[in-house]
């Protein structure tokens, strides 16, 4: 199985939810604003628990927030 990459739509969903700020989302899910920033920049992949909390904060499923794309072995990003 190749190495996969997790992307997310958090920034889009925040704007779709009344331009929710990063701090508001962080307060809702119980993390720091810097973690939301790292998530949006694709520098951090959250735990399953945090992924569910973020999805629940937006009222959507985890798959609506996070996408997993598998890369074939040997392909460059």
């Amino acid at each position, binding site marked *: 199985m190749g190495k996969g990459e997790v992307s997310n739509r958090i920034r889009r969903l925040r704007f779709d939810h009344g331009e929710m700020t990063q701090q508001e989302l*962080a*307060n809702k899910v*119980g*993390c*720091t604003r*810097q*973690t939301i920033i*790292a998530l949006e*920049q*694709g*520098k*951090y*992949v*959250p*735990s399953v*628990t*945090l992924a569910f909390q973020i999805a629940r904060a937006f009222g959507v499923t985890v798959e609506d927030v996070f996408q997993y794309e598998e890369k074939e072995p040997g392909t460059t990003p």
Partner: protein
Amino acid sequence: MTPQQKRAWYGLAIGIVWAAAIVAVFVIKGAAAFDEDAGMRVMVYGLFIAGVLAYVAMLYITGWRMRREGVIMDERDRMILRKVPVYQMFAVLWTLAGWAIALSEVYHDEGQIPVVFTWLMFYSAIIVNIVFASAGALIAYWSDEQHGQR
């Protein structure tokens, strides 16, 4: 900057002032005076304990203040801070290596070292360990911001 990064900066500032104060005493009085001058020993012990207390007080005060403002540590912080003991271990090892090389070079011909240096090695290892609890956290955050999860 995360609350843990702010704490690390405060800790580093305390650590640097603390280490500088102890080094200043040894530079002014001379390392040899540690064995002979009881006043100097009291001063060094006092500074040593004061530094540890200041560091612990900073952790309590910043923790109490930051908790009022919201979350102070989350899963990403924990992931990043798990790297800190590695930086501490290397810092202490390099410090001890520095002492070993310096003392071997200076006292090679005598074949023995003054007893005071065993205490200085012990103090310096503890100080470096505490300073690198903060410096290591800052390095770990910097590394994570540069490279993300690896």
